[in-house]
């Protein structure tokens, strides 16, 4: 059974249908890249998978449990599926360590003494053990994004959703973040990531989804998708990149 199952998912903003029937299975440990033009619905799909957007029709199932829209179910889902944002969204009034500890403490009810070692561990995991006491505005973009990853990891999720997590970074900071993602993938973390880093998608991902106008237009193993795209839309998309 897949960890995440999406069946015929529809989502509209007002009159505009943004997702027009998505079917998607993601197995535990799988690393999936989502690519596509701006406005094709990539973020919306990811946000639906975290319950940040509601959907009108279809279903999302995580670990055998169907996602319902009430707060209890949403929170249960979010305990299983973490999210990392393009703009980091670190809490500016808290240190890196406190950013990571906050949710384990208030959501899981851990004591400070229990949360602290977890925070130290996940910060070390992203190579920032020594930044425990730094505030977000004292960190570089790449470091902030790694703290954001650590913050999601501290909840011990089964899967991580990453929405263009390197797009807001200066080019020289991209690699330190991708290296963290790569090591997570190697450790067996389930990942769904929207990305424009085609080389990374090719090297690290098990599967590539190409979204076009609210549908998964083409998908497959990265070597196939990148080497011999079947649809003219994907050919055009990849052509525009090179």
């Amino acid at each position, binding site marked *: 059974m897949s960890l995440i199952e999406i069946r015929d998912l529809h989502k509209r903003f007002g009159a505009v249908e943004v997702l027009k029937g998505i079917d998607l299975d993601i197995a535990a440990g799988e690393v999936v890249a989502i690519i596509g033009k701006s406005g094709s619905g990539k973020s919306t799909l990811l946000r639906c998978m*975290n*319950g*940040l957007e509601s959907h009108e029709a279809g279903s999302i199932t995580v670990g055998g449990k169907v996602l319902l829209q009430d*707060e209890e179910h*949403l*929170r*249960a889902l*979010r*305990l299983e599926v*973490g*999210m990392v*944002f393009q*703009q980091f*969204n*670190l*809490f*500016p*009034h808290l*240190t890196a*360590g*406190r950013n990571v500890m*906050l*949710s384990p403490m*208030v*959501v899981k009810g851990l004591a400070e003494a229990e949360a602290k070692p977890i925070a130290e561990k996940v910060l070390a995991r992203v190579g920032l053990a020594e930044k425990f*006491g730094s*505030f977000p505005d004292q960190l570089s973009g790449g470091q902030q994004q790694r703290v*954001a990853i650590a*913050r*999601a990891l501290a*909840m011990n999720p089964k899967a991580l959703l990453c929405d263009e997590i390197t797009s807001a970074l200066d080019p020289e900071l991209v690699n330190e973040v991708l290296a963290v993602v790569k090591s997570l993938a190697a450790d067996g973390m389930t990942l769904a990531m929207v990305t424009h880093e085609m080389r990374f998608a090719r090297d690290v991902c098990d599967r590539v989804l190409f979204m076009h106008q609210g549908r998964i237009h083409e998908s497959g193993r990265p070597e196939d998708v990148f080497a011999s795209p079947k649809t003219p839309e994907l050919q055009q998309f990849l052509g525009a990149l090179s």
Partner: protein
Amino acid sequence: MAYQFDFVDVFKYTDVLARGVGLTVTLIGVGGTIGIAVGIAGAWARGYSGNRALEWLVAGYVEAIRNTPFLVQLFFIFYGLPSLGVRLTEVQAALLAMVVNLGAYATEIIRAGIEAVPRGQREAGASLAMTRMQVFRHVVLRPALQKIWPALSSQLVIVMFGSAVCSQIAAEELTYAANFIQSRNFRAFEVYFVATGLYLVLALLLRQGMRSLGGWLVFGRRA
């Protein structure tokens, strides 16, 4: 035209003035604290309770208070409420009126601060499985208060100035003390001149106090 200003006659009543200052400070200290708490609760109710009826109720409260004079609110509480069986002393009525008044303005101010917190912050909290209440308390509130702390401080000063009318229900604060003194020594101008100076000083101290309190409470960087 040969009026001789005489301030000595005012300073004979220093103890009366001091008691008046004392009550004014107490009123704004206690009323301010509770009023801000009401404002936080109100802002929560407007944006985070997810309860439509409560949202409308708070919106109605805020509009009712912001569109009527403090003096009338005070009279309504002190003279009007006893007919509902709620009988308050002068000081209790003054305090309640200040809390109710500040609470409404603080609700609006804090709500504006909350709306200025980027949506991504709330989403990050939600994606970490926090409840709306947890997001409000741990993610949104402090940055929001930081943003509006100066506005809140100004509002507190306005409420303190407004408290001068509590003299009208014989709450013995600074203006009441001034009224009392001028009824004794017939030096109205001198007395009110001194009282005005005292209010000026109190406002400066209040602002400074809010700065220190803010630095400690909402701007403090605790590791």
